[in-house]
C-alpha cells in the first residue's frame, strides 16, 4: 500500500477518476504525469482529478495539471478538479490558475458536472 502513489478508477465507460494519494511534489509529479498521459491517450469523455487525499501540491504538480489540461483540450476531454483543501487551493490562487481549471467541491459534484 505504502508505494501506491496515484489511483485510477473507471467510472462508467466515459469517465476516468485519477486520485493522487498524498503530497504532489517534485518527487511524485512524474508519476502523476505518466498516469495522466496514459489515461488521456485513451481519450475518455471526462477526466476527474480527485485531490481529496492531497495535503500539499507544489508548482511541479500545477505544471503537470496544466500540461494535462492542454492535452485534454486537444483530445476533446473535459477535465474537472475536485476535493481541494485550503492549502492546495491557495497555491492555485497564488499561481492565478484557479480560473483556468474547472474546480468543484466534491467528487459527487464532479460526477454530476
Amino acid at each position, binding site marked *: 500500500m505504502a508505494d501506491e502513489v496515484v489511483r485510477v478508477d473507471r467510472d462508467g465507460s466515459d469517465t476516468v477518476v485519477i486520485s493522487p494519494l498524498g*503530497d504532489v*511534489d*517534485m*518527487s511524485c509529479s512524474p508519476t502523476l504525469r505518466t498516469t495522466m498521459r496514459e489515461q488521456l491517450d485513451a481519450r475518455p469523455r471526462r477526466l476527474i482529478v480527485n485531490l481529496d487525499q492531497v495535503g*500539499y501540491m*507544489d*508548482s*511541479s504538480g*500545477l*505544471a*503537470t495539471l*496544466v*500540461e494535462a489540461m492542454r492535452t485534454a483540450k486537444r483530445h476533446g476531454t473535459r477535465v474537472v478538479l475536485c476535493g481541494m483543501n*485550503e*492549502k492546495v487551493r*491557495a*497555491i492555485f490562487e*497564488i*499561481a*492565478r*490558475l484557479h480560473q*483556468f481549471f474547472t474546480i468543484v467541491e466534491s467528487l459527487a459534484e464532479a460526477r454530476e458536472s
Partner: protein
Amino acid sequence: MNDRPHICVELLSNPAYLSGARELISSVCKRLGFDDLTCSKVALAVDEALCNVIRHGYKYAEDRPIWIRLWPLFDAEHRPDGVKLVIEDEAEQVDPETMKGRDLDDIKPGGLGVHIIRDVMDEVCYERREKVGMRLTMIKRVPRCCTPMRLSDRARVKRGAGDCDG
C-alpha cells in the same frame, strides 16, 4: 542578535527529501505561532526554492548539497513576528537578474517557482555566493495577531476561546 541561525540543515539534492524539509519548516513556523496557512505558504516557498536548485542548479543530480538556515525574527517585546530563511547551493552561478519568474498571463507548465516565492514571501533576494553557488534570502513577516509568544513562554494555559491579543 539575529546572527546565529536557530536551525541549519544540509541535505542532498534528492527530491525524496523535499517533504522532510517542508515538514520541518512548517512545524517550526507553527511553533513560532504562525497560522496554518502562513506555515504552509512558507514551506511552499522553501520547497519551490529547493526544486529550483535541484532542477536548474544541479540539473537533477541527486547527491549535491543544499543548505537551509532559519532565523526567527522578533518584535520589540521579543515575540516572534516573522522568519528569515537562507538557501544556498554550490551549483554554477547565474545572473540574479534572471530569477524573475514568468508573466502569469501566459499559462504554461513551468515558470511558476520564482513567482510563487516572490508572492508568498515579503522579501526575496538572490545573489552569488562568495566563491561558488547561489544564495537566496527570504523573509516573511507575520501580523501580530497571528503570532502568540510561543518560543520562550512555556507555561501558559487558556480556558475557553483564544483571541488575537491573548
